[in-house]
């Protein structure tokens, strides 16, 4: 089970949890399961998020692997100038 | 809008054009003569991108009327290299990476040439103040100043 860290203001979209455990092995599975289990986060996920997996910020790559011991943090979508 | 017929010399060549009397020299160069090396950044004399020499004096071509060029000589960036040989300033700008986006570069080069014609051995402060009217947003000016000082040195050595 991967531990997904939920930050600050996103917590109330996840019933107040700061960590949720999910049986997922890549980013795509994560992005599908999160809104299924926590429907309140669906609009945020649909709007676009970045997910940090083991310190690397991933914007889109669905097949980025998530291992059981991976650090996963859901973040607002990163942009740049 | 009335037009005026103008005979002038641009980069050593006799040129004739008819321009609206309210057209700036910059507009004439760019829109009528296709000399787009001279750039427009503000249209109000605040950025120096349109710098040219008029009878040997550095001016903003956006603040000169096209009709005012009658009987005078205009020198632009297009005339800076001697056919296929770059001017020392141009060479030094490339060697010192004194340009990033390059939009200010023609104006800076024309202004720097004008400085070195008057003062072949300027101090860093003199270069900075002379070029204060040439805005550059990319470089922070550091490499531009170094390139001008280097070019001045090389040109002095070539003269000696």
């Amino acid at each position, binding site marked *: 089970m991967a531990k997904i860290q939920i930050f600050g203001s996103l917590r109330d979209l996840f019933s107040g949890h700061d960590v949720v455990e999910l049986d997922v092995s890549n980013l795509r599975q994560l992005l599908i399961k999160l809104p299924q289990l926590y429907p309140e986060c669906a609009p945020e996920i649909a709007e676009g998020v970045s997910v940090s997996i083991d310190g690397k910020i991933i914007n889109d790559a669905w097949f980025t692997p998530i291992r059981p011991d991976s650090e996963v943090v859901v973040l607002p979508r990163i942009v740049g100038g | 809008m009335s037009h005026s017929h103008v005979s002038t010399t641009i980069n050593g060549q006799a040129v004739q054009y008819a321009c609206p009397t309210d057209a700036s020299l910059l507009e004439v160069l760019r829109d009528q003569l296709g000399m787009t090396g001279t750039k427009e950044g503000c249209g109000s004399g605040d950025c120096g991108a349109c710098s040219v020499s*008029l009878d040997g004096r550095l001016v903003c071509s956006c*603040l*000169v009327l096209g009709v005012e060029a009658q009987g005078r000589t205009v020198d632009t960036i297009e005339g800076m290299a001697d056919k296929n040989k770059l001017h020392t300033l141009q060479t030094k700008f490339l060697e010192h990476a004194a340009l990033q986006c390059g939009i200010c570069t023609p104006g800076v080069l024309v202004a720097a040439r004008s400085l070195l014609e008057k003062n072949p051995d300027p101090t860093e402060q003199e270069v900075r103040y002379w070029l204060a009217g040439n805005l550059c947003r990319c470089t922070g000016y550091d490499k531009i100043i170094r390139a001008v000082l280097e070019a001045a040195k090389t040109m002095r050595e070539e003269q000696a």
Partner: protein
Amino acid sequence: MQYIAPTTSAAAVAALAACNGDARLLAGGTDILVRLQADLVEPDLLVDIKHIVACQHITEDASGFIIGAAVPSAQLGEHARLSQVWPGIVEGMGLVGSTQVQGRATLTGNLCNASPAADGVPAMVAAGATACVVGPNGTRQLAVEDIPTGPGQISLANNEMIESFSLPPRPPRSSDAYIRFIPRTEMDIAVVGAAVNLTLDETGTCTAACVVLGAVGPTFITVNAAAEALIGSQVDEAALQAVQNACSTAATPISDKRGTAEFRKHTAGVIARRAAIVAHSRALA
């Protein structure tokens, strides 16, 4: 718009008089071209004075300097004698815009544009400069200080032009200075400007002085109290402090995007004091 470039002042003035619409003079063009581009003015006639011989040169004789109305700032700075005798006038005009603008901008334009912040004007007023004004009825001499009447307003008629300026002869141990305050080192409009023109006697006592502020009122402000503090003094600390106080008191600035009224009032004194120090050291040199 029609453009003409007459070779005499008489022809220029005649053209102004003959025009039914909006006729304007073109000297350096650094103000009017900006306004043309921004559609703030749409003149019917533009009269270029740069081909008028009387407008083109700087001359010096026993009665002082004559500066042609079309002489650009850069030419003032290149004139060694003028720079030596009237450094304040040269440096005032030398602060207008960039090197590029210096190649075009004239004292005449700076004066007649009548910006409260004109850098060329305070030192001209402090010098007691006069303008040779040509009109349909001939020529008259007008003190520079009588020309600006308000922001954008001047006392010349629409059919008159300035042909040249005269600077009076200079007693020994005289000099002037102009300093302005801007937020950068270049390329700004003055937030405060101050010109000081003074003469010392052999003992170093100030015998004549004029202190003029710019950008702190609708037009330049001549601060007589500051001049009085200098005259009779050795331009010592007490006199300088009095100049500073008098100038801060005399300034009547507004708050705008370039500075607050409080800041300008305070800085007017600081800058005037610094100008007095520079003028004094030049007069001693």
